[in-house]
């Protein structure tokens, strides 16, 4: 027999505790960041003694060029990403292109390859002078370089290819939710396929496309990896790389970096809020949330043309980059002219035997294992509190948990760096800080994945167990956890992968005794040869791919079980 009163107090206590801990992890670093951005005295002083807005004014006076670069690159990348995403989404959801399901799965690969690996690969393919394209051009008699990836367009191109996949996902979701009868009635009235596409499909998915554009643009503003690899050699700085650069200067200008980071955060946050409002108001849901059986249009012989468009994308975003990295990593001096190639495994041997590299890889994998395991347990608890309990204040918890999503990784890394430099607990420069940072930035990813599974499970499955006489613990053990198992595994793997490839936050938090793999790859690219870097990038990619294969297995098993 439960008596009502004490239960309410217990709930309040739980809520407060959870809010306190999550708030400490998520909000405290941001508060430190705000304070530092207003520091106009000695940048290393803590707490700051002189306050002012000079750091913000400097953005417009001294870094105007950087802001301009950021805008140009983000606009170019967004336009390319949306064009690619729309074309592919239309082909794969509305036409009978051959091999549709296989192609659709391939579309996810560029995202898993990560922009860092993509940028390195394209540096190999289209770098000036020694890039593969230029080598081939000269081999057939050309004299000047014809390709240069170290340009505004080059950076945008890599961003669009490897970070723009979200545009495809969002646009194809809105196309899938459109009733095919709307198109069919246009055909019945006598419109051609092209006319139907332009007069019915396009206007109907336009809101979805607008939403995707806004979202992708915000992402591109905060993008770091491509600009770091491809921008710095050509001295093209964007905001994220400028932040990075000002912390490397001596003395490091944390005030300046904080002001830029916060400005970037505010702009991105505003855009994401606008995006969310658009989605929520319902004006932008296409027709209805009902799922329709897809009835693709028969494209006849055109279908093969559409197929080659998809194939071209896969080639540019997956096949060529991987092939280029493979070739490079297996040679003493990278060349695409096979008669001059000197094949060797030396780069892999070096990568795996070189102390720092091996430690970095080992650290990354250990961090991935640890953060994924501990994280999944805590996140499951959070998901249960947010979506299944009656706790008051669970909305606030959800908001806090999702907050890191709105902060560019790099800015969050900077905030954590500054916070833990000044909190008198000695975890700065250790793997513990990295673990804490990873856990915090992975919160939205993990909670969203787990919530997706929890929401799929009909509440009555749990209620029925209670009605049958099971206590809460027995119900959890026999019904809830077994049903959640595939979802928990999937979340674990996603977090593991995200940890192994993490760059933005790691770049700031890595210490000489706590190296991780992604920043080490960037360092290798800057200091040693492309060949070694390529080998390291492939080792990292291979680790992610193994996890990915397991993930697909799990996902397939999961859909089978729940059908």
């Amino acid at each position, binding site marked *: 027999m439960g008596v009502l009163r004490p239960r309410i107090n217990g709930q309040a206590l739980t809520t407060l505790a959870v809010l306190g801990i999550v708030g400490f992890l998520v909000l405290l670093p941001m508060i430190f960041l705000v304070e530092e951005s207003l520091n106009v005295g000695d940048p290393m002083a803590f707490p700051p003694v002189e306050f002012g807005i000079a750091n913000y004014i400097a953005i417009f006076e001294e870094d105007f060029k950087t802001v301009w670069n950021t805008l140009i690159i983000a606009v170019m990348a967004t336009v390319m990403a949306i064009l690619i995403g729309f074309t592919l989404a239309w082909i794969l959801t509305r036409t009978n292109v051959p091999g549709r399901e296989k192609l659709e799965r391939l579309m996810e690969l560029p995202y898993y390859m990560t922009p860092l690996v993509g940028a390195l690969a394209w540096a190999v393919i289209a770098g000036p002078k020694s890039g593969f394209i230029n080598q081939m051009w000269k081999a057939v008699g050309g004299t000047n370089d014809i390709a240069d990836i170290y340009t505004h367009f080059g950076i945008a191109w890599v961003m669009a290819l490897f970070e723009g996949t979200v545009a495809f996902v969002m646009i194809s979701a809105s196309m899938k939710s459109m009733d095919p009868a709307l198109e069919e009635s246009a055909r019945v009235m006598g419109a051609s396929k092209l006319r139907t596409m332009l007069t019915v499909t396009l206007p109907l998915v336009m809101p979805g496309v607008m939403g995707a554009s806004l979202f992708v643009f915000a992402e591109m503003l905060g993008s770091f990896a491509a600009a770091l690899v491809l921008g710095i050699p050509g001295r093209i700085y964007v905001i994220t790389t400028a932040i990075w650069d000002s912390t490397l200067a001596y003395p490091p200008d944390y005030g300046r970096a904080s002001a830029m980071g916060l400005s970037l955060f505010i702009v991105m946050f505003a855009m994401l809020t606008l995006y969310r409002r658009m989605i929520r108001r319902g004006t932008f849901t296409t027709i209805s949330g009902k799922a329709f059986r897809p009835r693709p249009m028969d494209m006849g012989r055109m279908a093969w043309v559409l197929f080659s468009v998809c194939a071209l994308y896969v080639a540019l975003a997956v096949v060529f980059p991987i092939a280029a990295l493979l070739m490079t990593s297996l040679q003493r001096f990278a060349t695409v002219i096979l008669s001059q190639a000197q094949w060797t495994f030396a780069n892999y041997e070096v990568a795996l035997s070189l102390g720092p590299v091996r430690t970095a890889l080992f650290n990354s994998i250990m961090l991935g294992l640890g953060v994924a395991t501990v994280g999944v347990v805590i996140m499951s608890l959070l998901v249960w509190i947010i979506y299944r309990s009656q706790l008051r204040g669970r909305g606030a918890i959800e908001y806090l948990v999702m907050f890191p999503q709105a902060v560019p990784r790099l800015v969050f890394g900077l905030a954590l760096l500054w916070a833990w430099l000044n909190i008198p607990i000695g975890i700065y420069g250790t793997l513990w800080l990295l673990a804490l940072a990873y856990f915090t930035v992975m919160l939205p990813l993990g909670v969203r994945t787990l919530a997706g599974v929890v929401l799929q499970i*009909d509440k009555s*499955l749990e209620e029925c167990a*209670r*009605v*049958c006489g099971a206590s809460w613990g027995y119900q959890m053990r*026999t019904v809830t956890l077994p049903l959640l198992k595939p979802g928990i595994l999937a979340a674990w793997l996603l977090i593991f992968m995200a940890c192994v490839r993490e760059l933005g936050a790691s770049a700031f938090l890595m210490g000489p005794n706590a190296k991780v793999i992604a920043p080490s790859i960037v360092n290798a690219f800057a200091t040693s040869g492309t060949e070694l870097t390529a080998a390291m990038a492939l080792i990292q990619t291979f680790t992610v791919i193994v996890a990915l294969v397991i993930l697909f297995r799990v996902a397939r098993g999961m859909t089978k*079980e729940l059908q």
Partner: protein
Amino acid sequence: MSVTRIEVKDLIVRYGDQVAVNGVSFTVGRGEHLTLLGPSGCGKTTTLRAIAGLEQPSGGSIRIDGQTMYDSTERRSVQTEQRGVSMVFQSYAIWPHMSVFDNVAYGLRVRKQSKADIQTNVERALDLVQMRHLADRGASKLSGGQQQRVALARAIAFSPTVVLFDEPLSNLDAKLRAEMRVELRELQRRLGITAVYVTHDQEEALAISDRVIVMNVGVIEQIGTPEEIYNRPRSRFVADFVGSANLIKGKWTGDDLFLAEGGVTLKVVASHKPHGRETEVAVRTAYIELEPRDGDNQVPGKVRQRLFHGDFVQYVIDSAIGPLIVRRPPINLLEEGAPVTVSFSPEHCVLLEA
């Protein structure tokens, strides 16, 4: 049926500032089949879930076999699993990660029965719903009708005295629904289960219940046997929602007389004590004859439209008291335009509460 099994008193359930159930009281006798009937959003499912302990009421009390399960004045609420009731869910809630056997055995295992007892009881329950041959099948590989049967077997396997049904047949197709109705009724009688049954299907409610409660916007409109509800609807809502009826406007003129619009006086009965402000009577479409009968209310009219439905024929008759819908057996068909005398007994002309 003389002994009260469930007693619900002044039950109030709120969602935020919305009141889903607003002061509902009723009792269910031992072995009785009671149905909560109403349109979606009327509070019937919420009432049922409150009995199960899945919904936290904000007022009133619920007692089962004399034991307090919920009481707002005592601030007491018994956990769902300790109430000893069983339930069949609208979505069936068959656990997809277990076999049919494990699903049905769940309640028995919770009650720590011996292996042998579990085996016997599960088989007995599966026999009752003719599903024994599928005991080892994974639950995710069942059709809708089969899931329905497994859910039923699971709900009765641990011999509960009270079973709650939340629209259990609403996801089945019409034919299967009619079959399951017959089986459910038989099973409930044979096992002597006390059943509280929620549905929005008036036909189903009338067919399988001992008593029906018609609900609307969180309150009870009428409680009665299916015959009482059908023959003596108390309100316009009940007359309209249960079965099909003609509503005739006019004025109660005292005793058993009603002056209908068009100046025709009808003899009526009332299911309540009239207070003089009544303005409507209801006449079931099935109770109207199209030829004069002695002692009946008689009104002249003309066939405007005939719709042949197969099991019955529906006529629209233009009469002195307005257009009337009449359902007759599909024999002796009348042509459109034919003159008729509409005739119905005063017993079937029910004065509605204002």
